[in-house]
């Protein structure tokens, strides 16, 4: 579904991505792991066109490298950025409704499903989203992107800065998205959720993919973990 080949990206003069290759198949859950600053977030940003990409990015067979992000989104590629960019002045309900791309074509996720899934969001449906807690904001941004009915959703650091109990809830949400048949590319630093729900994992180091395999293979490969993941 998503094919990335020899992807390069720059911030000014610094060469951040130095030839990333990765694939996500339909319905697959894939995690992109690595320490801070190795280019995980930049990879998804480059796929989304927020950072200018060089190389090949194909989604459902279409070359999407460098397309405006709204066109990429309309092809069915959802993106939940790491800063939980909710629209703070709009209500929770309005935030969710803006996730819909075309109001004439209802997707498989409805507003009511989201509110049923998260009683916290339902209770605050008509309050400005700016007052939500970090965990609630994460649920909101993820649900908002789901409202656009993506076939693949890229979620950047969903558990960053959240309490263990909330991390569990985020994990449940991601598992539920996977059950619905939506492919997931999860960017994470911590291994906890990723190892449990992923079909495959990539480990990045210095702007490249340094390991690719199943969670079990990563578990048994202590060299990769020591060199590229553990602090």
């Amino acid at each position, binding site marked *: 579904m998503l094919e990335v080949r020899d992807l390069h990206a720059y911030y000014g003069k610094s060469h951040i991505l130095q030839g990333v290759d990765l694939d996500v198949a339909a319905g697959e859950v894939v995690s992109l792991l690595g320490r801070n600053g190795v280019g995980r977030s930049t990879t998804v940003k480059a796929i989304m066109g927020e950072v200018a990409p060089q190389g090949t990015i194909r989604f459902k067979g279409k070359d999407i490298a460098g397309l405006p992000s*709204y066109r990429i989104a309309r092809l069915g590629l959802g*993106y939940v950025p790491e800063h939980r960019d909710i629209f*703070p002045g709009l209500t929770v309900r309005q935030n969710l409704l*803006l996730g819909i*791309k075309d109001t004439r074509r209802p997707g498989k996720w409805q507003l009511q499903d989201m509110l049923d899934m998260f009683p916290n969001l339902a209770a605050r449906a008509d309050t400005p989203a700016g007052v939500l807690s970090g965990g609630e904001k994460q649920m909101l941004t993820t649900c908002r992107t789901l409202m656009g009915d993506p076939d693949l959703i890229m979620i950047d650091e969903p558990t960053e800065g959240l309490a263990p109990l909330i991390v569990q809830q985020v994990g449940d949400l991601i598992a539920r998205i996977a059950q619905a048949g939506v492919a997931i590319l999860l960017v994470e630093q911590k291994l906890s959720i990723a190892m449990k729900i992923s079909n495959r994992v990539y480990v990045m180091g210095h702007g490249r993919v340094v390991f690719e395999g199943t969670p079990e293979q990563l578990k048994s490969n202590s060299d990769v973990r020591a060199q590229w993941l553990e602090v």
Partner: protein
Amino acid sequence: MLELIVISTLNGLLFGMLLFLLSSGLTVIFSMMGVLNFAHASFYMLGAFFGFQLTKWIGFWPALLLAPLLVGAIGMAVERYGLRNTHKHGHVAELLLTFGLAFAIEEIVAMMWGRSPVDYRVPALLDFPAFTIFSTNYPAYKIFMLAVSILIFIVLLMVLKRTRVGLIVQAALTHPHMVGHLGHNVGRIFMLVFGVGSALAGIAGVIAGPALVTQSDMAAALGPILFVVIVFGGLGSLPGAFIASLVIGLIQTFAVALNGSLASAFGPLDPSAGPSVLTDIWNVTIAQVAPIVPYLLLVIILIVRPMGLMGTRET
């Protein structure tokens, strides 16, 4: 005195609402695109001249509709073919583009209509006193201007708060990238907002033209006040722009109307001291300093509260 207060309040509200027609567009464009549009007052001037010309050809009422549409179309073209291409070279390039455009529009207007005021008159239908307070006849046209600006204010508010497009615009004010990631065409929204903002300035021009002076330097005269309004209100804040427009409108109108000076408040200085700088200051009337009052306010607000009354950005 009561008469002066009533009339000045009405005039101040009117001037304030006109300023809001301009500052609302300017401030929304700023928060979305991060660009201070120096040509915004020029769109106001174009509105006035198009209004004048179209009134001559097809009458005031069709002109009231058509002139803002024309100005809006020009605004959209400026965004689509000018700013969007300049955007990749950064904000300075965009700023310079609007700066150059302001001068170009002024010169083009001067070439087509000359530099002296044109004879843009109040339509006959509205050329009568609406009511008389004390001894002053208040013109019906001014009431019409006030009504039009209030109507547009309400429509603008409803569109922003109640419609889906309005919600997308609100979201794009703070998070344009995220709006794009959700599949909304941010470029088209920018163009639309630029067009509507320009059209609002155009409406202000069409209705203000007959009441004020329609002349090729009117943009240059109003532009600086406009910047005072949006900086005072807080760059990017619509409620801030609204309050600031009314405050500046009222302050300016009252300052012009009041004739007080230090001399009239505290009595003349001892004449034996002879003329000095102090006697000059002592005799300056409030009306005389009225033109600089907005700028003083700007300086004070920048010192005391740099983000403006209701601003959130720290630019």
